[in-house]
């Protein structure tokens, strides 16, 4: 009697969260998978011709889609390693100093609380061809400084460079925070022992710091790979309108997904293309997460 009463009470406490999750998380998850296989799905009427692989055939035959896939992979494999290494170096540096540590820590955390769209627009201004700061600095170095980074006709390479710089800039704070708290948890005795043996600093870093920090590195790697696969807002922030993004061929998978979703060709099944792209992304992220976990199981020192 008491237990069943308690049971009911628990479900009452859970009800608000549970109902919302059922409607906006659990149901959508299954429904989106379903939509991915509904051909010519019209989301306003709910009509579709049949179940099949038509949406996948459509996106896999679409050159723009493959462009966004290769862009996304490029961003993932370039920006994640760079930002992990940079933030690790910064965290180690921060951990080794006393004066000004708090000041630096606060500064390095600033990009985290800022608005991706807002600061992306600032980056676009800084990389402006004629009156941007970056080209001015390049000019000071005596180099040709008429580089069109983000304007129309900038080309893929330059646009991608700016996008990568911005993604790394944005990604640093979270990683530094995690690494720094990890470093502060490492027993000082390891370092004292190394000091007595007068071990070179590089060796201390590769043989003590990195292995002892490996759980944090694994965690950061998993979360940042997932984040980088979903890159989208930075692209909109830097390049703005769809025409500008297409002009540079700089769209990502998620960009393709939202472009399909808001495509006016509702009757032809544009929502189905979006769902297929989402499922594709989901599977890639799942595979990557498993690979990551597998590697960390072998390599991570606990």
């Amino acid at each position, binding site marked *: 009697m008491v237990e069943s009463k308690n049971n009911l009470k628990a479900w009452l406490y859970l009800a608000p969260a549970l109902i*919302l999750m059922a*409607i906006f998380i659990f149901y959508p998850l299954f429904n989106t998978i379903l939509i991915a296989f509904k051909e010519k799905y019209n989301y306003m009427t709910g009509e579709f011709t049949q179940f099949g692989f038509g949406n996948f055939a459509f996106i896999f035959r679409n050159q723009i889609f493959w462009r966004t896939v290769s862009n996304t992979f490029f961003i993932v494999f370039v920006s994640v390693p760079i930002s992990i290494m940079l933030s690790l170096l910064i965290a180690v540096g921060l951990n080794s100093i006393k004066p000004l540590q708090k000041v630096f820590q606060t500064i*390095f*955390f600033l990009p985290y609380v800022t608005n991706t769209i807002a600061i992306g627009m600032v980056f676009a*201004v800084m990389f402006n061809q004629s009156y941007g700061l970056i080209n*001015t600095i390049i000019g000071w170095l005596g180099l040709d400084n008429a580089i069109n980074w983000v304007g129309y006709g900038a080309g893929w390479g330059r646009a991608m460079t700016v996008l990568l710089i911005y993604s790394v800039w944005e990604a640093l704070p*979270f990683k530094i925070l*995690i690494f720094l708290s990890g470093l502060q948890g490492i027993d000082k005795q390891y370092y004292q022992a190394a000091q007595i043996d007068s071990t070179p600093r590089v060796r201390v870093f590769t043989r003590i710091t990195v292995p002892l920090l490996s759980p944090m590195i694994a965690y950061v790697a998993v979360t940042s790979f997932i984040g980088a696969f979903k890159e989208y807002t930075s692209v909109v922030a830097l390049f703005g309108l769809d025409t500008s993004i297409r002009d540079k061929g700089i769209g990502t998978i998620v960009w393709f997904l939202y472009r399909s979703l808001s495509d006016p060709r509702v009757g032809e099944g544009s929502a189905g293309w979006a769902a297929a792209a989402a499922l594709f992304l989901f599977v890639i992220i799942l595979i990557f997460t498993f690979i990551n976990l597998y590697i960390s199981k072998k390599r991570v020192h606990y």
Partner: protein
Amino acid sequence: MTEKMNVKNLEKSYKVELILKNILVYGFLGIMAIIVVVPFYWMIISALKTQAETEMIPPTLFPQLLNFQNFPNAMMQADFARYIYNTIFVGVVSTVGTVVTTIFAAFAFARLEFKGKNILFTLFLATMMIPGEMMVITNYITVARLGWIDTYQALIIPFVVSVFYIYLLRQNFKQIPNELYLAAKVDGTGDFKYLLRVMVPIAMPTIISITILKLIGSWNAYIWPNLVADSDSMRLITNGLRKAFTDDQGRSQIHLQMAATTVVTVPLLLVFLFLRKYIMQGVSRSGIKG
């Protein structure tokens, strides 16, 4: 004698190494800190320049005249007062809602016993690994069919629940000793009263972290609001910022664009500087931006 010399030499070389190390470390950190700060600096000085000055080649590194008029002008460019009102309204309502659903669910998972508790909790956690885009597509369709496009409901209701915050608070609730709960039971205190009078006050720092992170997340939200509420009267601040100054190449009116950007960014920076402790505590356990 020679041994003493050696020790002295060694000490000296250590000192030189230490100084070199400090120069290297501070130099590196300093350069990185400048890279982090420069965009903020550039934003603020551009916001204070006249239009003519923003287009000067080479650009000035400090405004010739502090042109504060840019701020009201930028706010007039589009209906920014409306965007700010929308954002604050949506942010506050969805934050209050989230905190309430989170406290109840976390309490059930942390203190109450019921059938299927572990399975349900695992199921909740598993959803955190699924990219949100999977949900967005169906949610967009749901909202469109309900006729909620361009309404506050569409901006608020899907977001008054968060698995991550439930997890965070549940962990915190779990740390509160069970004896307190049993003692309260003996005294005849009901669960609800116990939750409000004992658990919520003890877990207040976590609840404050959740509140701040959620508010920041609402302020910065872009993808979903852009999808479901893009009419001029329903726009939120980020979306308004992106749209208001996007003429063909974003070339003209940089001074106004940067003034609006400053208006969006500065409140966040102030919140961060004053509530640093809560934000960093919350973030170090999360990894979810916004």
